[in-house]
């Protein structure tokens, strides 16, 4: 794997939220690698830090949150320490994002056309410099984008407000906006959670389809391993602010190495192993304030041992695979 092949590389990212009860370590030493053209699935329960990790990448962490440490390299540039102006130029143009619910992510008071146009206006460098020509070009491009995501008669719908579209249409529009400047990386944060099952599939198809056509990378943040299984090359499982397992999607699903991953798989009907009952993981994600130095899954882990009560690092767990479980090390030794 050449260095040039890597689009995004995050090392030891730490993002904390300062609260009255103490610092919440929402992201605690996370490493991420996204290659050009690939789709990385990021899986975890809510509160696992998966969204915060990528908000950090985009520089969207707001007070009382802050990035406490780590390195973020994107396309050869260090993003941490970048001025707001440079960061703004990267957001949207190079790294784009879609959000869980397009109904809340699209501004209700602005027309769809305006929300598309402002994205193009801010980032598209191929447009004429100014004046009517620019306006016309933006409009043409907007129509083209809406057509790309499959909005019928896009020309007439630019002047409409978000609430005038159906849920699936809105999601498509949000994707159109995110993709309009032709970003290198799309972070799709829970793109399907708010949608019906049938529409979910259409939207995911759309993302995969466009990825293939534009050759961009996609990070698909979801709590649904099933979605990842269908659409992503690699997967990264997060728990309580840490990565617990990563590897090629097929490998991870076929042979999960971390008990949490196994638990996740068991809770999904489609993917659970034949013959085994579907069961959710019991217990709750631990409070992220003042965690003791131990495996964070300890309290919920069906396979916990006394040796889990120490700091557990990521360990290699096969080709291109790593996991954060003390049991792996013992296997390796054995």
């Amino acid at each position: 794997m050449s260095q040039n092949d890597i689009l995004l590389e995050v090392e030891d990212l730490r993002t904390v939220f300062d609260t009255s009860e103490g610092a919440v370590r929402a992201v605690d030493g996370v490493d991420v690698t996204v290659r050009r053209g690939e789709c990385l699935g990021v899986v975890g329960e809510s509160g696992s830090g998966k969204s915060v990790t990528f908000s950090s990448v985009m520089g969207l962490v707001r007070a009382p949150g802050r990035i406490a440490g780590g390195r973020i390299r994107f396309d050869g540039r260090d993003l941490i320490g970048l001025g707001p102006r440079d960061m703004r130029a990267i957001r949207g143009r190079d790294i784009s994002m879609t959000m869980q619910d397009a109904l809340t992510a699209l501004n209700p008071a602005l027309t769809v056309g305006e929300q598309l146009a402002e994205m193009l206006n801010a980032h598209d460098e191929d447009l004429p410099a100014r004046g009517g020509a620019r306006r016309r070009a933006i409009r043409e491009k907007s129509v083209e984008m809406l057509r790309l995501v499959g909005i019928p008669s896009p020309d007439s719908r630019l002047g409409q407000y978000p609430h005038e579209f159906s849920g699936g249409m809105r999601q498509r529009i949000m994707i159109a906006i995110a993709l309009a400047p032709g970003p290198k990386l799309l972070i799709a944060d829970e793109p399907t959670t708010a949608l019906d099952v049938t529409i979910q599939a259409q939207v995911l198809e759309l993302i995969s389809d466009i990825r293939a056509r534009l050759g961009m990378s996609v990070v698909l943040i979801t709590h649904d391993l099933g979605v990842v299984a269908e659409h992503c090359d690699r997967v990264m499982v997060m728990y309580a602010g840490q990565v617990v397992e990563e590897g090629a999607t097929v490998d991870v699903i076929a042979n999960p190495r971390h008990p949490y991953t196994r638990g996740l798989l068991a809770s999904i009907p489609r993917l659970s192993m034949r013959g085994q009952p579907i069961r959710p993981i019991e217990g709750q994600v631990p409070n992220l304030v003042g965690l003791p130095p131990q495996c964070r899954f300890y309290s919920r882990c069906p396979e916990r041992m006394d040796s889990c009560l120490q700091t557990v690092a990521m360990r290699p767990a096969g080709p291109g695979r790593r996991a954060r479980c003390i049991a792996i090390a013992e296997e390796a030794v054995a």
Partner: protein
Amino acid sequence: MSLGKLTERLLHLVPVLLGVSVIVFLMMALTPGDPVDIMIGDQSVTPEEEQAMREDLGLDLPVHRQFLVFLGNAVQGDFGTSFYHRRPVFDVIVERLPATIELSLVALVIALMTAIPLGVLAAIRRNSILDKMATVGSLLGVSLPGFWFGILLLMLFAVHLQLLPVSGRIGFDSEIEPITHFLLIDTLLRGRPDAFWDALKHILLPAITLGLPMTAILMRVTRTSMLEVMRQDYIVFAEAKGLRRGRILFRHALKNALIPTVSVAAIETGSLLGGNMIVETVFGWPGLGRLVVESVFLRNYPLVQAAVLFYAVTYVLLNFIADLLYTTLNPRVKL
């Protein structure tokens, strides 16, 4: 919004306006004593005139007929005769309206121009010194008795510093032929910037006094709704789009945050009408508010009655406008 919907909403106002006029009518009808005697007071009146006043007020009819007469006349703008002015009440009120409306509008503009930027700043610099000062300021703003604050302003700026005039709408050197009767507009239409400046100096203190509570309220509303809006996903999404901060604040956030501000402003404009009584009295402003207060003491009941009705109707209409504005600004709400 379609014309039909608009008409429908307007029709909803009818029962409210009818109820309002019943109450205004009752205020007078239930006054103890003979209203004509009380109104005449120590004026010298012939029996014929007294009889005419009685007929004017329909006092010889049963109460429900009296109300119908009152309503019928009111709809035609006939509120009887202002005994002291010896002219129709309607005419007397209309003459005083421009001064009151101009004062209210300037107070509104001052309130909006200070409240919105301050509210936005307080929200985006939450918990900063500025935010805390704005909070304290808004608490003071609603706690200050207007009549007292007005007197203090008058003493400071007009009497001690002599920066601003003591009383009236415009200086005599700045006199102009009226066109709209709104002096700030007329002076400009007549090409007299000096007179405009003069009229502005006259209106400043009363408008500030009048607008203060409203400023406080609007600032809080703006701050609260701005904070609320800034938490919304579409702001995060706008940031993720890499838009400039100015565009995010003013186009994305403010447009939504102003929806409650604007509708509250429209409703509060109605409260300005009430404040006029006090402010016009303190500053000798020649508007309807002062006329009403004077009329109360002259027992000029037809005028007081007409003015109360006028204020109530205006208030109802302002609330209606607030509704319309809310609808217009907020594409999600359908009529």
